[in-house]
């Protein structure tokens, strides 16, 4: 199709990967919280830190795609 560049497809793949990763983290954190509700605040912090790291990798890719495309 006209007008859809590789950049856009690449961005789609980036989002897919990041979403999978963050989804896995969310799943893991939910299960851990259900098992041990008393440490849920610690789990929450760890969850956000790791999600932020994945988001960081995705943002790098987005910026590269942006600069290239």
């Amino acid at each position: 199709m006209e007008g859809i560049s590789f950049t856009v497809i690449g961005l789609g793949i980036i989002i897919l990967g990041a979403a999978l990763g963050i989804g896995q983290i969310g799943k893991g954190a939910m299960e851990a919280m259900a098992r041990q509700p008393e440490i849920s605040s610690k789990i929450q912090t760890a969850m956000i830190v790791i999600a932020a790291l994945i988001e960081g990798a995705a943002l790098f890719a987005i910026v590269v795609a942006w600069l290239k495309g």
Partner: protein
Amino acid sequence: MRAFFLLTGLFMWMAVGPLSAASEGEAATGKDFDVTDMIMHHIGDSYVFHIVSFRNGKGELVDVSLPLPVIVWQEGHLKVFLSSRFSGGNDLVPIGNDHLRLYHEKIYLTDAAGTLHFGADHEVLNPRPLDLSITKNVASMLLAGFLLALLMIGVGRSYSRRGGLAVPKGVQLVVEPVVLYVRDDIVNAQIDKDKAGRFMPFLLTIFFFIWFNNMLGLIPFFPGGANMSGNIAFTLTLAVFTFFASNLFGSRHYWQEILWPPGIPIYLKFLMIPIEFIGMFTKPFALMLRLFANITAGHIIVLSLTSIIFVLQSIYVAPLSILLSLMIFALELLVALLQAYIFTLLSALFIGLAVNEHH
């Protein structure tokens, strides 16, 4: 119940804000409404603070905007004037032997005739002066700083007047839980107890400053609406602060991990050292991009959803468009707090990695 109505009213107001902004865009450009242009104009910086545009009884377009001071430094000449001097479009302002010209929200140096030279991709080749102007973003940032100082000095006064252990009253009730949360669950959880106090003022300040700037950016009418925390220079500055805060106070152990990682074979050391070294810079770099990308994306989504009406040129999509942008607005209120929280948490984490004693 009253609170519910208030909130609904507030949300409706917020949804109407970008709507009026979009209609201004349409009014300015006539029938052909360029979405990208309107959005880029709204998330970009400007030398005027736009308040409202409307058509008067004769059908003329009236722009009401607040001119902001332009401060330019060029080869020993300092020039301070209001941006309304540019309002004629082609007006030139002399500075030394050169002239200043405003073109597409940027100030260039030109000759006396105001000639602009263009490159192959229609980019302007004219040099630019050192620009220290109070632009829309800077004005919005100063407002956020002013509000923050007003709030915090007021709260601090009432603590010193009534004593730190007295039951909190008034605004204290709002601020105290937030400050305590940042102190106990963000900073103290990441940094060793005996060192956390040194970084507490910095981390509390960036938390509230980012939050205030995010919230001001979400107000769709005059004093708000600037995309300050979605400006990469702003987030870069904050990330540089975190970079220095973590590296200047780094422990011996932290530098050893970077410069000569212990406990791994010697050939791996030469692989690990560059990685650790680059890691020093990628951490604040990701911090910078995260805030920038999240806030800018939020502004773009709200404006795009509102623009659907003007792209399709139909009033019947308005309910859908308003509902969607309303939902995104509510989400952005959460994101404003969440991004301030994440920036502070990760800053505290990086500082903690650098200064904590090895256990």
